[in-house]
């Protein structure tokens, strides 16, 4: 069983939804990010998504774009991203880490070399925004072969007919993007999300995490009620920027929000699935 499968099995046993946190690797700098990463599990993150910075993040809003550019300005690179994971794994062998980003930095690193190094570092899954099922040969199939989950995004435009293609070769969990839009955009209402998750569940047994537009405990709790996990990203990386302006420690500032959100999510008891 992979770390991701184990984690979702444990969540099911606990009868609650998971909390997936997104931060950008190397934001605002390598050292601070390493501290933040190390602090996430204790603050309540069940799964960690670590963004691989890219100069041209076409599916991201201004906040996550800015986080990537901050990181790149401080020397972030694929090697440093993998180092963050490797160092994290020295102390935590249970919390799943999913790398999220765009294909070009992986392609430049070399797909085969990337998969070997990512696996060795302790990466559990990949979310690559610009690799739809139509491009599965590029990375998805080699990743699955290398024992790394390829986690796909499903969106409101993914209809009944297309869902099977999106689910094929997807494992670990499915990431349902609750609105057609970029990261940081407004949220969909929980009713619509609930219906969409139910629709997806008819096609698959893998857990469904829901993201986009979750900014506070109230919304996180609402999503936790209808999904297997809630993903928060933009609100976290915005705290990095805020901390820099205020001159306080970004890691502490982000972790404080993670604790709040985690409490909200843990407060939601799940009806047995």
């Amino acid at each position, binding site marked *: 069983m992979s770390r991701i499968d184990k984690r979702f099995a444990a969540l099911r046993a606990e009868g609650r939804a998971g909390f997936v946190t997104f931060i950008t690797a190397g934001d605002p700098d390598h050292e601070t990010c390493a501290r933040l990463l190390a602090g996430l599990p204790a603050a309540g993150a069940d799964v960690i998504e670590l963004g691989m910075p890219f100069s041209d993040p076409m599916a991201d809003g201004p906040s996550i774009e800015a986080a990537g550019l901050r990181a790149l300005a401080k020397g972030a690179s694929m090697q440093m991203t993998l180092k963050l994971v490797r160092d994290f794994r020295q102390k935590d062998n249970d919390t799943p880490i999913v790398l999220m980003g765009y294909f070009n930095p992986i392609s430049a690193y070399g797909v085969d070399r990337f998969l070997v190094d990512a696996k060795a570092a302790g990466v559990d899954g990949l979310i690559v925004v610009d690799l*739809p099922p139509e491009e599965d040969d590029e990375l998805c199939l080699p990743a699955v072969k290398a024992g790394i989950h390829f986690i796909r*995004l499903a969106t409101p435009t993914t209809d009944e007919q297309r869902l099977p293609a999106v689910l094929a070769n997807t494992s670990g969990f499915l990431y349902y993007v609750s609105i057609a839009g*970029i990261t940081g955009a407004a949220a969909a209402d929980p009713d619509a999300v609930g219906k969409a998750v139910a629709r997806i569940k008819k096609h698959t047994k893998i857990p469904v995490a829901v993201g986009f537009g979750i900014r506070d405990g109230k919304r996180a709790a609402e999503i936790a009620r209808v999904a297997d996990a809630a993903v928060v990203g933009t609100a976290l990386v915005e705290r990095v920027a805020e901390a820099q302006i205020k001159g306080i420690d970004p890691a502490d500032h982000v972790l404080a929000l993670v604790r709040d959100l985690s409490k909200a999510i843990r407060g939601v008891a799940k009806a047995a699935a």
Partner: protein
Amino acid sequence: MTMLNSYRSGPDEKGHFGKFGGRFVAETLMPLILDLEKHYAAAKSDPAFRAEMDYLLKDYVGRPSPLYYAEPFTKHLGGAKIYFKREELNHTGAHKINNCIGQILLAKRMGKTRIIAETGAGQHGVATATVAARFGLPCVIYMGEVDIERQQPNVFRMKLLGAEVRAVKSGSRTLKDAMNEALRDWVTNVHDTFYIIGTVAGPHPYPMLVRDFQSVIGEETRVQMMEKEGRIPDSLVACIGGGSNAMGLFHPFLDDKDVQIYAVEAAGEGLETTRHAASLAKGVPGVLHGNRTYLLQDADGQITEAHTISAGLDYPGIGPEHAWLHDVGRANYVSATDKEALDAFQLCSRLEGIIPALESSHALAHVIKLAPKLPKDHLMAVCLSGRGDKDIYTVAKALGVKL
């Protein structure tokens, strides 16, 4: 190595030209892209679509554009016989409108009610704003702040045409960033919005359909050269940003193996510097904006900024079909610097009474290098992709003239 029996059969059903192209887009866009492909296939075999397109190209755009014997230019250079394919005489002043007519008709067929586009020089933005006005659709144009600064006349034209011009402040604030922003808009408004991509790039089927819509350039050139000279050209020259005017000129001749093909990238301050836009000469294959192609990027796969005096060529990538033609060796990819383009701009203005776009001036700069070495019976067709009115402020500044 197996011989190709045609250079014109691409892309394959997955949108690949050799290893280039593809559909590297977010899931949100994928259903729409598949739908666009279906609609385009249906439109292609629908005589009514063809008829409406032909009508608009003729009476609205003013096609066919002339193939003009550039006698003063030819005499001055003293070699090859040079013809200009006068795309600058099209309505809106560039080749870009050929493609916009085709795409807006597709948008209509698909029932889309809102148009978006990216623009660099503003020519594609103007052409898109124009067809959006003509078809009564609201239109948003994304343009980098740097380009807004250097192409003021076109910004005002777009506004006059009723388009909203949104300044893009991210990244290098030029064409690539405008494309990122247009993609973000598209992902957000996918239900009602059609994205008119301005060059032979982006996810499949865009590189194919833009090529098809621009191929009118080469098809006319073939017929016109036959009429004037009784044979097809010996060589073709065009500038390359994303590569649409070049592909439009080249594609109908790809299987005429004796036709030499030259595509001219922008070398900016020189290929030996980092300030250029020569993605084939200096880039490596990667994935950006929906397709695999040659890209200017660093070792970590971060896209680097392109630099050229010509806003329309200021893009760190190139259409995937060009990447493939480069690799199989069917076309020659060369470059011209800012300085060479500026010289060509002035020479053409003075000798021919035609002020060419700075983009097209890159093609002319290569003609200036090439033509003198060729015999007088060598027929050369150059794509004059646009007119230079939009560039007078940039050129004045470069020449140290205050307007």
